[in-house]
């Protein structure tokens, strides 16, 4: 089994998007490796993003799927007012460029827009930016070992959770 083609790599990103659109969080978590990196850097100033998570602030920085499980637990807990009326979301991914690093590793760059209908406040917003995925073959399956979310519109209207990016 060799590295994925662009179409197959893109399909994995689309599957992630679909699971998030459906709020199917168990299936979403299954796409990630146990040691995954899930990282949304902050902006340092007008033009540059933070790039050293140990010394600079990120919007979200997790190493380990366990932390994403915490996020899902909070969303489902029934004790988070921000998660009480779940927004409706729709992910669009384009401009996919995939590159094989080795037989078991792919790097995938893409652009995203997530449209969010916030029912609670009757507001609609869009979050947009770029993804940098690293896909890794584990056994027979390809998993997400890294998702870097470069959010362009980072003035967050009230809140933003993992399903909105």
């Amino acid at each position, binding site marked *: 089994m060799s590295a994925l083609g662009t179409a197959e790599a893109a399909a994995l990103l689309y599957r992630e998007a679909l699971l998030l659109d459906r709020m199917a969080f168990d299936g979403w978590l299954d796409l990630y490796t146990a040691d995954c990196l899930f990282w949304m850097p902050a902006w340092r100033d*007008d033009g540059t993003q933070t790039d050293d998570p140990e*010394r600079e*602030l990120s919007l979200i920085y997790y190493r380990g799927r366990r932390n994403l499980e915490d996020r899902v637990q*909070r969303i489902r*807990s029934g*004790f*988070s*007012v921000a998660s009480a009326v779940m927004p409706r979301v729709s992910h669009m991914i384009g401009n996919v460029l995939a590159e094989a690093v080795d037989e078991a590793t792919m790097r995938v760059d893409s652009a995203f827009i997530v449209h969010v209908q916030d029912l609670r406040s009757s507001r609609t917003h869009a979050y947009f930016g770029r993804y940098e995925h690293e896909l890794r073959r584990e056994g027979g399956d390809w998993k997400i070992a890294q998702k870097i979310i470069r959010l362009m519109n980072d003035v967050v209207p009230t*809140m933003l*959770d993992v399903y909105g990016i």
Partner: protein
Amino acid sequence: MTHSFALRDLIDDRPEDGVFRVNRTLFRDPDLFALEMKHVFEGGWVFVGLATQAENPNDYFTGFIGRVPIIVSRDGTGALRCFVNACPHKGVRLIQKLCGNASRHVCPYHSWTFDSAGANRNIKWQKAGRYGAGFDAENHDLAQVARFGEYRGFLFASLNPDVPSLEEHLGEARKLLDLVVDKSPEGVELVPGRVTFTYAANWKMQLENCSDQYHFTSTHPSYIRILDQRAREQASDVVQSSIAAADFWQEDAGGVTGGTMSFDHGHVLNWGVMPVAPSAPEFEHAETWAALHGTAKRNWMFNMRNLTIFPNLQIAENASSQMRVIRPIAHNLTEMQTWCIAPRGESAAARSFRIRQYEDFFNPTGMATPDDTVCYEEAQAGMAEQERPWLQGHARGLTASVMGGNGYADMIDLKPARSVLADAQLCDESLFGSYYRAWAARMAEVVA
């Protein structure tokens, strides 16, 4: 103005009758908001930034005082200055960037040029311009703000010249800023990476929430459960938290767990006892700080402290350490500019720990702040009620509040105007009175 306001209709302050109430009008009225911008934010001292944001000659950063765009600039000699970010020619905003370094600022519209001290260095084709005597007599420099001052790296400005000195404005609250700054001999800095968010509610919701101990276990149970779980697991691959080790918010904690203090001019502190323990990112300094500052001050430096310097600066030191700047946009829209504030020169491990805790707790993309901001918006919706306009949210602790300080304040020679010592369930709300009395003082010209 469509109508005028009477103070008694807005704030019901009758200590002799055991009453302190705030009217919903303060949160929902656009005309009152316009007056607040002029008199609270553009009529007195406000926080504008940290000196370290413009560290070197010709460094600058931009911001706002109320609605007025400003530049804080370190001039060529190293002196900090603050001026209005608008060209005197046509009023065009001179600098559009958030921050940068430049010895000359050229207006993008007609090329009038200013130096980093705000002085006009060139008016394009001035000699050929056939100006009259009136123009020549005018000052063409950038407008300096009326008052500008620094306390230990914290920069404040006032567009109104008729204000007390900065020293008097901050008063005893300076000692609380000392607790933040003294964490390093080099002072504090902002961790790179600014996070900005908005919420669709009045700015005073944020003002109050920072000092509102009552909400914590109600608003954040989903986060608290995760903290509990992480504390039990102590796994290496989950984000750890120091707040889980504290008991100031635990319902069954006995005895004094913290309290509140309020100061003249609207500054308030909500504090809780936190252990001097490895769960704090600063534990590595426990011995050094005790030797430098004495045990009492050292212990205060470890305590949970949510400090407001009225009206727009909040420093929250609890799960991590956050500096927030409140920027009201409309009566029902507020922008929050937030940073992780940290002692300079701390170890790489402590800095990383501080940042990790910060992100989960304070970010609008984290697991706690979204539950706050959503509550602010839900409160804003309820502010429409007219039948019973007086809120019931400023009454807890009224009979526990005493003039002056207490034993805990005495430990660091702190002299608040009022204080409350609390167990875990008292959750004082009477400290909010300090905000509204300072608000009324700044609004006195238009709300009598």
